[in-house]
């Protein structure tokens, strides 16, 4: 099978969804089948990539000598797997959620969702900066209708911030950074070892790195993080897409990829090239966690948690050691599973109990044991406690900090983990340990099966990831020094 | 004599252009603007005439049978430019007539006030 199937299968899926728009069952079935096939196709590349191959396809010359081209390397395969695998789960969940809440414009929803996956796959497989940028923007635009799905004033405002920040940073910083790279080096390809080494001065490299890091607005480095909480107005499956499946992951993945294949770890580690971004990431990490503590709205708290977790990955990239990069890459996967579970839970809570505030959840755990159980597992994974997947990535990140001799960053990771505990654990704790407030409706039950099954699946995933690091290590072996 | 003429023409051109341009800019009355425009264009015709003078070249009217149609170049240029100018003036006046019908005024200030009044309610 050609590599081209990966980015363009979702597009075909989108087309099928549009055509089946009148028949909801068929529409969702098509969505699911496409997602399943895509995931299977993606996994099928695992052996080749693990064996060290880099399959490449050139579509055509896009801008003069710059090409629209795809290639599959380990980081890309990891991200592609996350996106395609979770697309399936999210589609399953969305089918239940959208019907359960009688949402309008369901066809549009599934169509845009599929296009967004196309964007994510394109980002994952991009062979050069230009291709990455093209699909990055496609991802932005296709998710805008999802963010503004409800169409009311709040959705409009959220959409405005979403589009404003993401387009603004990408056109204002990312594109100029790409142009600059092209002008300075004459290439835009992602090459092992990077392309900038020896071509640019350290000062220019520092500037470029800053431009890339902030230009990738999807990575939500402060102060360009506002779009993420603003996008909370969207339906829960969309939040899952944004926070776990595609959008933010595309952002941090881009930073990782740029660090590894444009700057090259050796070059990036020289001098102070990544230092400013490191500090910004560290600040974001702590600040977002602190803000999350103060938020009572469940989804908002989760959003700030995401900002903070993304900063882990960015920080991993900025540390520019093999360990930290591996940790960052793993965290893409681990956080994806954790966060998607949390959002599914939030959605399930909303569907079943119509609760959105943390303070309203007292005692709900008894009525919804599966949901809150999953919530607890996912929280622990994100905090980084064994025996859950999240512990691996945090471990490697800390090793990376140690490798880079950045003791302060080490401390930052630790403090942040404590803060994670402080804003995440109280939620399941209140649900299970506190008494329900007087006068609360009796007979509350779990959300419909279509909602509960996916969240159980992903929570199980968090668990399994801890015990199955082998394949992951094999995939990331280029950075596996230990 | 020729350089003198040339110089003279040059200054006349400059002065006429200034006057014309001033009228176009300074006057609110649309008709006066058109008049200013005409003066402005006349300056150019004079420039072209002096161009012809400097070149001194007026081609013969009746050439060899093979090249029957040969013009003294600058004259044709001036004529064409004048035609363009007349056409512009005619169109401008036609517009003024229609503006007067639609607004009841030829003063640009009045027209802008009327437009703004239309916007405000």
């Amino acid at each position, binding site marked *: 099978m050609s590599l081209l199937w990966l980015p363009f299968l979702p597009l075909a899926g989108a087309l099928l969804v549009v055509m089946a728009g009148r028949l909801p069952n068929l529409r969702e079935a098509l969505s699911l089948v496409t997602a399943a096939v895509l995931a299977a196709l993606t996994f099928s590349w695992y052996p080749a990539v693990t064996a060290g191959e880099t399959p490449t396809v050139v579509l055509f010359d896009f801008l003069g000598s710059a090409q629209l081209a795809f290639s599959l390397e380990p980081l890309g395969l990891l991200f592609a797997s996350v996106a395609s695998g979770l697309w399936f789960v999210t589609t399953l969940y969305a089918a239940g959620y959208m019907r359960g809440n009688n949402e309008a414009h369901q066809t549009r929803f599934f169509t845009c969702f599929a296009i967004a996956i196309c964007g994510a796959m394109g980002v994952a497989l991009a062979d050069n900066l230009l291709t990455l940028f093209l699909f990055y923007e496609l991802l932005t635009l296709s998710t805008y209708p999802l963010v503004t799905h409800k169409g009311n004033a709040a959705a409009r405002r959220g959409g405005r911030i979403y589009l404003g920040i993401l387009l603004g940073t990408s056109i204002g910083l990312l594109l100029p950074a790409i142009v600059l790279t092209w002008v300075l080096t004459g290439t835009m390809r992602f090459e092992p070892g990077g392309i900038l080494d020896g071509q640019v001065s350290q000062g220019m490299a520092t500037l470029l790195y800053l431009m890339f890091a902030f230009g990738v607005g999807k990575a939500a480095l402060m102060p360009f993080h506002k779009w993420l909480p603003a996008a909370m107005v969207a339906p829960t499956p969309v939040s899952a897409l944004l926070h776990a499946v595609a959008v933010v992951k595309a952002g941090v993945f881009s930073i990782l990829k740029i660090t590894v294949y444009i700057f090259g770890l050796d070059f990036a580690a020289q001098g102070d090239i990544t230092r400013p971004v490191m500090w910004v990431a560290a600040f974001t990490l702590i600040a977002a966690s602190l803000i999350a503590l103060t938020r009572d709205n469940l989804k908002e708290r989760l959003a700030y948690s995401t900002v903070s977790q993304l900063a882990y990955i960015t920080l991993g990239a900025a540390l520019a050691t093999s360990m930290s990069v591996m940790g960052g890459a793993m965290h893409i996967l681990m956080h994806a599973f954790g966060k998607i579970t949390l959002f599914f839970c939030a959605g399930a809570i909303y569907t079943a109990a119509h609760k959105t505030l943390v303070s309203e959840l007292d005692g709900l755990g008894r009525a919804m044991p599966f949901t809150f159980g999953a919530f607890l597992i996912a929280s622990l994974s994100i905090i980084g406690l064994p025996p859950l997947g999240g512990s691996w990535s945090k471990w490697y990140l800390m090793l990376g900090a140690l490798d880079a001799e950045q003791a302060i960053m080490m401390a930052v990771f630790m403090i942040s983990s404590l803060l994670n505990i402080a804003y995440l654990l109280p939620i399941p704790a209140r649900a299970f340990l506190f008494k329900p407030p007087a006068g609360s409706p009796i007979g509350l039950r779990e959300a419909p099966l279509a909602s509960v099954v996916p969240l159980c699946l992903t929570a199980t995933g968090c668990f399994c990831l801890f015990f199955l690091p082998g394949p992951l290590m094999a995939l990331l072996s280029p950075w596996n020094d230990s | 004599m020729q350089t003198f003429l040339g110089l003279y023409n040059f200054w006349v051109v400059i002065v006429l252009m200034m006057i014309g341009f001033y009228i176009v800019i300074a006057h609110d009355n649309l008709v006066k603007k058109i008049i200013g425009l005409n003066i402005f264009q006349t300056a150019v015709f004079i420039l072209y005439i002096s161009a012809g003078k400097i070149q001194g070249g007026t081609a013969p*009217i*009746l050439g060899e*049978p*093979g090249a*029957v*149609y040969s*013009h*003294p170049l600058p*004259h044709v240029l001036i*004529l064409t430019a004048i*035609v363009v100018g007349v056409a512009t003036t*005619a169109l401008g*006046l*036609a517009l003024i*007539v229609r503006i007067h*019908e639609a607004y009841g005024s030829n003063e640009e200030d009045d027209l802008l006030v009327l437009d703004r009044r239309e916007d405000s309610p």
Partner: protein
Amino acid sequence: MRQHTLLRVCTRMLVPLILIFALYVQFHGDYGPGGGFQAGVIFAAGIVLYALVFGVEAARRAVPATWLRILSAGGVLLFAGTGVVSMLAGHNFLDYDALAGDPVAGQHIGIILVEFGVGMTVTGVILSFFYVFAGRGRRD
């Protein structure tokens, strides 16, 4: 100005002379400066004089506005059509050599046709403009 005896008498005598002069200029374009454009202006001027003295309505009766439309468009067609004919004959646009076996005669016919086209158009356009202008004050 119908009651303007002098103008009326003078105009009645002048107009045919002006028109024939216009046609003279039209068809002698290749022997002197002038040709279609001047001829068109003069021809139109003759009719404008008539309209000034006897009224635009009278002029419209004698030379209806429809004619002007046909005149101006037909002129362009004649002008461009002559060029197209020379193109069809394999020569460049407006290369009159194509119009007759003998190049000189070809040029001659070509110039006459093209100048006539120009004259028609100029007359038509000027008169159309005059009709529009002159008719306006009274209509509304």
